């Protein structure tokens, strides 16, 4: 479970999150929706502990992220998978090396075992043939797939965080990425947070939905609850998307 309690984040005098509360039950996918620059990605940074709130606290499986030391944070993140907006693949490494990176860093597996697992992960995302390619040779969709494979390299990722995983992709590729995210959740039963501004993709992957506007949570609930919300912003958002 991931829980944010009265979290406030500010960059200088600009308040990005204003006392927000959020709860993602274990094994569920929470989709955070809102306009660009509304503070969606900031929530992910708080969960990862790369950004510390001015006030409030972030709990991940009852562990208070803000109270962890640097070493504890590094250990905590080892059970976390994160897919960045553009993939954030290491551009000096091949696809295979990118996926193997976590295994090299945190396990004592032999090279053969690492390669076996890398091949399995790339097969899972449908990119086994790209093992030796460089990230610069891949399309946007392929890069996201590799990023998902890399995020899954941890034996048992308890949390998966996705930052705009389908932005800039064509509808077919977006759907395949969403399907893949669903498969990942089924496979690992992880607790997921997905940040997006695409409602179609949100419905494909989400169990719960949260709308952020002006640094505040304006609604949280299931698809039905969101669709029946009387909030004008949400109604406009839904109508514009459809």
């Amino acid at each position, binding site marked *: 479970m991931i829980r944010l309690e009265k979290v406030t984040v500010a960059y200088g005098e600009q308040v990005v999150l204003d006392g927000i509360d959020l709860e993602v039950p274990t094994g569920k996918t929470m989709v955070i929706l809102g306009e660009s620059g509304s503070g969606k990605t900031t929530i992910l940074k708080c969960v*990862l502990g*790369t950004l510390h709130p001015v006030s409030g606290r972030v709990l991940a499986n009852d562990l208070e992220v803000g109270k962890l030391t*640097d070493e504890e944070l*590094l*250990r*905590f*993140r*080892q059970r*976390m998978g*994160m897919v*960045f*907006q*553009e993939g*954030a*693949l*290491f*551009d000096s490494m091949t696809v295979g090396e990118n996926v193997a*990176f*976590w295994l090299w*860093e*945190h396990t004592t597996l032999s090279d053969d075992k690492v390669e076996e697992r890398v091949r399995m992960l790339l097969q899972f995302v449908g990119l086994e043939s790209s093992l030796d390619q460089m990230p610069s040779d891949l399309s946007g969709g392929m890069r996201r797939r590799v990023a998902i494979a*890399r995020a899954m390299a941890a034996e048992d990722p308890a949390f998966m965080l996705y930052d705009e995983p389908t932005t800039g992709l064509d509808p077919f590729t977006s759907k395949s990425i969403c399907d893949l995210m669903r498969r990942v959740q089924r496979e690992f039963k992880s607790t997921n947070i997905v940040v997006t501004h695409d409602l179609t993709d949100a419905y494909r992957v989400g169990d719960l939905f949260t709308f952020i506007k002006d640094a505040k949570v304006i609604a949280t609930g299931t698809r039905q609850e969101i669709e029946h919300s009387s909030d004008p912003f949400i109604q406009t958002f839904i109508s514009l998307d459809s």
Partner: protein
Amino acid sequence: MPVRRALLFLAGVLMSVQDFTMMIVKSFRYLIFHFRMRESLFEMDRLGVGSIPIVFLANLFAGLDMALQFSVVMAPYGASNLLGRVVATSIIRDMGPVLASLVMSARVTAGITSELGMMATTQQIEALLVMGVDPVDRLIAPKILAGMVMLPALSVVGDLLGVLAGLMVAQLGAHVPAPLYWSGVRSALTLPNLVNGMLKPFVFGFILVAIGCFYGLRTTGGAQGVGRATTKAVVSAAIWILIANFMISKFLIDIWGWKL
């Protein structure tokens, strides 16, 4: 308002000093408790071996020029017999390490800042953190070690090249016999000179890599930000190398006295 701006500026400077110190302390802690042999050797090859041609070229021409200038100055006083000693002393004590560092800062500091800057702006640094890997451990510590090991090594060989180049000018231009030149060079190989010649590149190697890493990690603002950070890093490294050069010279002269 100006007071507030000055206070904010001061706070920014203090924060930068704190961040830099933290980065250095963590780097040395990782070098001691979590040493990465593979990455360190890789960086030594990249930063050190890759810089051989430019460092050697710079030292070669510095040796040629210094021998030429000193022979012009010393000939009227009949002191050409001291040419070997003067050239070797200046190269070992100052010119060799400083020149090697300045040339390397153009290559190494710029390279490190742009590499890390690009990684920072494309979220690769954040990706490392998210994967439970401290970028200081994986990226910075091996580079700092490589700088501190490889610059003294390059500097020593560069010094030798500079002295050999000086010999060429001494023989052909100043008509100083080779044995006389070499006896001067040998007399310059004193403990104070050798300590000078080894300590300086060790410190300069640290400076040029640490500054490159620091600016690289803090890069924001896309390609333009990378360019800005690289310029700042190279200029800072050059200035700090010159400052450190003076301070080490002063420190060693205070220890050894005015002995050559």
